[in-house]
């Protein structure tokens, strides 16, 4: 059980080393010299991905607290993909907005390392530390444009509420530790399994506090209030990164803790998560309808998508568990690409992220408009895209687990959500273009990232089976 090999932390180490290398390179950079820092980061990410693939099926455990099981590795790969695409989009944005490249890429990589740690953590304390590593990096990334007062305000709100919620999360860990005598997930799990009949109220307090911490990170209602503000204020590319990466990592840890350790108490938490899921889907969708800022609209949309993921968690049958992983991947690629388009349309002076800025985009930028359309259709869950398969999977899991109410709400909200996604499409194709907007040129790297994401969205929609099988296998290793 206790193996001191470092195998399981290798992916994380690769990313961390890349981050350190970026920082070092920046520190010794001559004034005015341009360094391929993003490329350095990509090397680290690719190394991490290779090691993750090599670790597949080996269930490596390091120090007893980090476990590279297939579930963790699947999420790790998703996170690496997220980071890779983010860096590719960033190449244009960093130069355009004059962001400090060294700090920017290092923070992205540190955050990625934290996310991977969170997805593979086998100890509540490690989950907490990972959460903080990624959160602190993301707080700074949110406010990386120090000249933009809205970005700073977003960073501040995100930071303050994030710190607030992590105190609750930590308190939950303290109670768990006090009960089980350890923060190690396997030991806590053994304890919980033995106590499943006892009805000790402290267990429920611990459970509730942990739930708060996770609910904040995945922005479930009513812990979602920071999301629209932080997503709107942050640079679009950072929003894309945190709306996908943070959510995926938090969900991985959430699923790991609640579906394995607290599995004996599922009767206690399932009704609450049911409620959270329903409220999250409804609020995210309904409020999204009234938004006229695209980033803010997608922020509400990503809240709603968190709700769909929660449905998978509640359903928690074999299909539901695999559905969570598939949905995470589909959502990550889609949302990241959508924010990528938004990021690429901005200029240093103007973000160009209002709905009206998209009027007639089809005339000036047909390729970007078409790519954005695919993203939006996928977010709306229209076939044949990844989003459709993901939703289909989640809802059929909910129905087969007997959660008809959630399925009905989920289908209804996704029907409504198509309405606001389609508004953007209408803007792009069916509105005359105002003369003023001349979108900036798009670098080849960013375009390649976009095209790859879109290809992935369509491929996942048309040929989902290999990924589904993959997801089902990887989830089978822990639950």
């Amino acid at each position: 059980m206790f193996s001191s090999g470092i195998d399981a932390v290798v992916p994380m180490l690769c990313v961390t080393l890349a981050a350190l290398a970026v920082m070092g390179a920046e520190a010794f950079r001559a004034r005015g010299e341009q360094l391929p820092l993003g490329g350095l980061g990509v090397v680290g990410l690719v190394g991490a991905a290779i090691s993750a693939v090599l670790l597949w099926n080996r269930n490596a455990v390091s120090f007893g607290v980090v476990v590279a099981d297939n579930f963790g590795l699947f999420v790790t790969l998703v996170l690496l993909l997220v980071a890779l695409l983010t860096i590719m989009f960033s190449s244009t944005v960093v130069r355009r907005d004059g962001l400090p490249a060294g700090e920017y890429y290092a923070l992205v990589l540190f955050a990625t390392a934290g996310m991977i740690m969170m997805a593979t953590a086998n100890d509540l304390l490690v989950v907490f530390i990972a959460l903080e590593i990624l959160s602190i990096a993301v707080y700074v990334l949110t406010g990386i444009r120090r000249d933009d007062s809205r970005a700073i305000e977003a960073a501040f709100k995100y930071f303050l509420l994030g710190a607030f919620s992590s105190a609750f999360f930590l308190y939950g860990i303290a109670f768990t530790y006090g009960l089980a005598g350890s923060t190690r997930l396997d030991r806590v799990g053994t304890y919980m399994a033995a106590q499943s009949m006892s009805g000790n109220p402290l267990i429920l307090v611990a459970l509730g506090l942990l739930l708060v911490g996770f609910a904040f990170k995945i922005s479930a209602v009513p812990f979602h209030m920071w999301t629209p503000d932080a997503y709107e204020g942050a640079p679009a590319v950072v929003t894309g990164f945190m709306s996908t990466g943070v959510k995926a990592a938090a969900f991985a840890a959430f699923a790991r803790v609640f579906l394995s350790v607290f599995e004996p108490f599922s009767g206690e938490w399932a009704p609450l998560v049911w409620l959270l899921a329903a409220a999250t889907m409804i609020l995210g969708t309904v409020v999204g309808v009234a938004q006229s800022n695209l980033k803010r609209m997608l922020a509400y949309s990503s809240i709603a998508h968190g709700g769909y993921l929660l449905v998978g968690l509640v359903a928690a049958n074999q299909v539901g568990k695999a559905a969570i992983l598939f949905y995470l991947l589909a959502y990550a690629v889609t949302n990241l690409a959508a924010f990528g388009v938004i990021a690429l349309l901005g200029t240093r002076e103007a973000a160009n992220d209002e709905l009206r800025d998209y009027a007639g985009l089809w005339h000036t930028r047909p390729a970007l408009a078409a790519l954005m359309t695919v993203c939006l259709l996928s977010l709306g869950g229209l076939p044949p895209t990844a989003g459709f398969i993901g939703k289909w999977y989640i809802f059929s899991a909910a129905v087969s687990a007997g959660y008809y109410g959630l399925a009905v709400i989920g289908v209804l909200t996704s029907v409504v959500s198509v309405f606001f996604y389609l508004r953007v499409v209408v803007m792009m194709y069916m509105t005359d273009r105002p003369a003023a907007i001349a979108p900036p040129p798009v670098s080849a790297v960013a375009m390649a990232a976009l095209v790859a994401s879109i290809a992935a969205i369509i491929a996942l929609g048309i040929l989902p089976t290999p990924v589904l099988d993959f997801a089902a296998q990887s989830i089978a290793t822990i639950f």
Partner: protein
Amino acid sequence: MIPLGHYLIVSAMLFAIGTAGVFLRRNLITILLSIEIMLNAVNLSFVAFGRQFGSVDGQIIVFFVMTVAAAEAAVGLAIVIALFRHRESLNPDAFTSLKW
């Protein structure tokens, strides 16, 4: 010897004070300090539990938490300073350009 329950009650009270401070106080620095109080309340629980089990785990965890809290405070203060430069205010209610 002081029983475990007493520590936990003090810890819970501290935590409640911190929580109340976060959304009742109107000064950013005080709010940051309130969050620190919350974290330290949890630390107290960890130490108390650790002593109960007779293991050092609880105290080691506290070191981790303190490190994390320090990092968080550093970033938090930096953000607050940047915000103050833009808005010349420390009242959290003054920062509402992002809403709805």
